[in-house]
């Protein structure tokens, strides 16, 4: 298609026309570039980026280590195999480092295996245990208990016997079976960290005494928790800090805005300090 003569004239002469910009334009261009470099410069500086990444990883690792340290208890499982066979849903565990230091006032739990596998034992924790420090793990586990379980637990707790040191309560078979079923339905798998030293149970299931100092019961067993401890459940978890850091790392990776207040330090300030600006 033939071009209109006016179009052809202007196109030919003006399409590649040039007008030299003033010097001020170049200065402005350089200013814009410097502004841009200041804004996103640190992304493109590999060594500094690597240093920032390493420091972030160190911080993250340190934070994780610090958080995991208080609840780091050694786990040793001992017990009779017969126990596992008798009471599979209720694993009685003992938290040794803390609880072994507890006075003997600590009440004990005992699992009383029944003659058959279907029957289970609901251990009770007397109020003396409530005064003992309980670890966060216990709380997080207990957090997952259903209201039904909690009510049943409360029922168990509110009926302490006079002989609290031998506070072993054997529910009747029917009740404990229903409790176990309820627990099995609701309880979710949780992190199990502390399992210690189960005393060799005597075959005499009628014995009401136990030598275990203090015990924790996994979430699928019924454990009572003092109300002061349940308040701790509502406190923010420490891991949310890590989640924030990871979120900011993801933002950095995706090129989105990074909120360094969430991370805890500002790399631009560190870089500026390092290069003396």
């Amino acid at each position: 298609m033939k071009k209109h003569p006016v179009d052809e004239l202007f196109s030919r002469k003006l399409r590649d026309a040039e007008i030299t910009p003033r010097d001020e334009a170049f200065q402005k261009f350089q200013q814009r570039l410097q502004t841009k470099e200041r804004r996103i410069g640190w992304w493109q500086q590999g060594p500094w980026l690597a240093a920032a990444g390493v420091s972030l990883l160190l911080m993250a690792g340190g934070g994780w280590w610090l958080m995991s340290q208080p609840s780091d208890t050694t786990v040793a499982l001992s017990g009779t195999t017969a126990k596992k066979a008798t009471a599979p849903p209720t694993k009685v565990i003992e938290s040794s480092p803390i609880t072994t230091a507890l006075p003997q006032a600590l009440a004990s739990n005992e699992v009383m295996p029944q003659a058959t596998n279907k029957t289970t034992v609901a251990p009770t924790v007397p109020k003396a245990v409530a005064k003992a420090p309980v670890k966060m793990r216990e709380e997080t586990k207990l957090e997952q208990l259903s209201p039904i379980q909690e009510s049943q637990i409360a029922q168990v707790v509110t009926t302490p016997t006079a002989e609290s040191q031998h506070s072993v309560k054997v529910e009747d078979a029917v009740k404990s079976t229903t409790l176990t079923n309820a627990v099995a339905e609701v309880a979710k798998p949780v992190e199990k960290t502390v399992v210690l030293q189960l005393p060799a149970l005597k075959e005499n299931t009628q014995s009401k005494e136990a030598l275990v100092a203090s015990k924790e019961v996994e979430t699928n067993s019924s454990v009572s928790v003092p109300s002061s401890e349940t308040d701790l459940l509502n406190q923010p978890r420490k891991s949310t800090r890590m989640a924030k850091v990871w979120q900011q790392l993801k933002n950095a990776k995706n090129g989105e805005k990074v909120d360094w207040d969430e991370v805890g330090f500002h790399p631009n300030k560190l870089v500026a300090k390092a290069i003396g600006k």
Partner: protein
Amino acid sequence: MVKILQLFTNEGQLVRALQKGDPKAQRYFYEKYSARMLAVCVRYLTDQMEAEDVMIEGFMKVFERIDQYKGEGSFEGWMRRLITNEALMRLRTRRHIEIDIDAPEVHQQVHFEGIENNLEVEDLMAILAKLPTGYRTVFNLYAIEGYSHAEIAEQLGINESTSKSQLHRARALLQQMVSEVEGLKWKA
């Protein structure tokens, strides 16, 4: 500058360096394209200072979006489109584009044979700058950039028929002004 010129002997090298955010490449880019792109901006905006602003903004856009350039078509064509869009955005924000429907019709027919050789770029730029903004914008986009009427209509938010009528009137006015300037030159 000699060293910079040696570094970017072809367009591909320049693009790769720009994609890495190389400051030398950015300066070289400015040296190479600023004059041509400024002329593009002046064709739309007529004011050189404003055109320089728009050109710099356009260059920043080029640097930001350089990763989007996949080597399809010429780099300069891709960049020119970005710069043109930037100029149109400036016109739009300042409401410079008025579609001049009521401008007088020009019936004078001018024969172009032989006269265009006497017109310099500055003359033609001056003539173009005298056009109403709407005429000039449509003429620039169609006759010089090579946009279709459909693309112009989309860019400016007008009908295709409006784009065509604007172009027709722009041509008529330009013919008239060219003949006047040419006549003045002959007399001189």
